[in-house]
């Protein structure tokens, strides 16, 4: 039996847990906890250790999806999470520009620790105040080469599209070598 891993990362409240939940065949073994810090109480719970989703491919292949915890004080987990992964998805809340800077910092850290392919999901595109993918690309200063995809994490089709694009990138990168 073989297992491979992809990591879902992004700022606090971006929609990482929702993203994994939408596609995992098991309930996300989430480690949610009530939020204590007043400043970050835009919602009731946050992921404190990591999310954990699974997709069984066939009898001898399983894909695990790991979600990083969103709050900054847990950033020590990142390095552990990035070990041996195929690629990663950076989820950005397109409607909260105040988190773009942090998204960029996360992206940078991940890219340096884990030189694997990645895609950026411009999440919450269903919200009226969501930035478009094009505007987000400029705000995050992402090169044209980097794939950015519109996303609604609660919608399975949209999550599938993001993961597929990541897999295509992984395949392309293999061919280049």
């Amino acid at each position: 039996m073989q297992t491979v891993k992809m990591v879902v990362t992004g700022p606090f409240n971006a929609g990482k847990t929702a993203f994994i939940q939408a596609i995992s065949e098991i309930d996300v073994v989430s480690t949610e906890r009530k939020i204590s810090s007043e400043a970050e109480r835009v919602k009731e719970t946050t992921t404190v250790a990591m999310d954990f989703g699974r997709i069984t491919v066939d009898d001898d292949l399983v894909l695990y999806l790991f979600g990083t915890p969103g709050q900054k004080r847990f950033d020590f987990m990142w390095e552990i999470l990035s070990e041996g992964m195929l690629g990663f998805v950076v989820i950005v809340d397109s409607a909260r520009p105040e988190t773009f800077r942090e998204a960029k910092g996360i992206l940078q850290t991940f890219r340096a620790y884990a030189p694997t392919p990645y895609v950026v999901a411009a999440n919450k595109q269903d919200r009226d105040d969501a930035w478009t993918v094009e505007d987000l690309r400029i705000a995050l200063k992402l090169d044209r080469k980097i794939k950015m995809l519109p996303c609604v994490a609660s919608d399975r089709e949209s999550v599938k599209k993001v993961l597929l694009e990541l897999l295509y990138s992984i395949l392309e990168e293999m061919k280049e070598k």
Partner: protein
Amino acid sequence: MALKGNLRDFSVTQLLNLINLARKTGTLTLEGPNEAAWVSFREGKLIFAQLGNEDGTLTGILLKSGKITAKQAQLIKSHAGEKSDQELGLMLINAGYLNQHDILANIRQYILDIVYRLFTWIEGYFRFDADVLPPDDRITIRLDLENVIMEGSRRIREWEQLQEEIPNLDMALNFVDRPGANIRDVNLNVQEWKVVSYINPKNTIRQIAKTNRMNDLEIRRIVYGLLQAGLVEVVRPVGMPLPPQARQLPPVNKEQQASLVNRLINRIRSL
């Protein structure tokens, strides 16, 4: 009653506000994770600051701001070591080295630099000792705290933003290999040049800062500018070990790898 507590519960901004509004006289001691600082006030005005064991004498301040050379500083110390800062100041003015305005401006800048840095201390302890004032041989100033608080708050926001964008100082920098991105065509100031001359995947940002005696905020500011201009990128420092199995797809064979990814693709398509 002694005013003391934890910076987590009562921030530097709140402390300065309190001192300002209550027009307090005395010295605030802050104990941060790495060093201590002392800031003194008279009737709610900022008059003096000292950081750790930094040389905050007039000689030390003028040396730091580049008004005198290390050699001159040494000369002053050996000739006028016993003199108070006030006497030394007069001596320098009479000798035509500096005028009073220069001296006061340098002291003011030195004190403000320390106080602004304290705004970024979010961890540590504080204590306010009423009526304790700086040593008599130091020159004090008199600054309104309102402006200091405004500027300090602005800087802490900047500090937080830079911290988010450049979270890890243990990373290295590399020049971007892109036509048109030539560092030689850019107008850089002295500080920026100092940083640029050490950019190399072997040096971490922290090492560059240390070599140039810059604090975290100063180095982040410069790196931020270079990143924004698209001249450099953050890279893993040479020699930093990769996480054990990073990049290592289970089957080593290329066809097997591709087949594995194709199986994943088919599975996800079918969901």
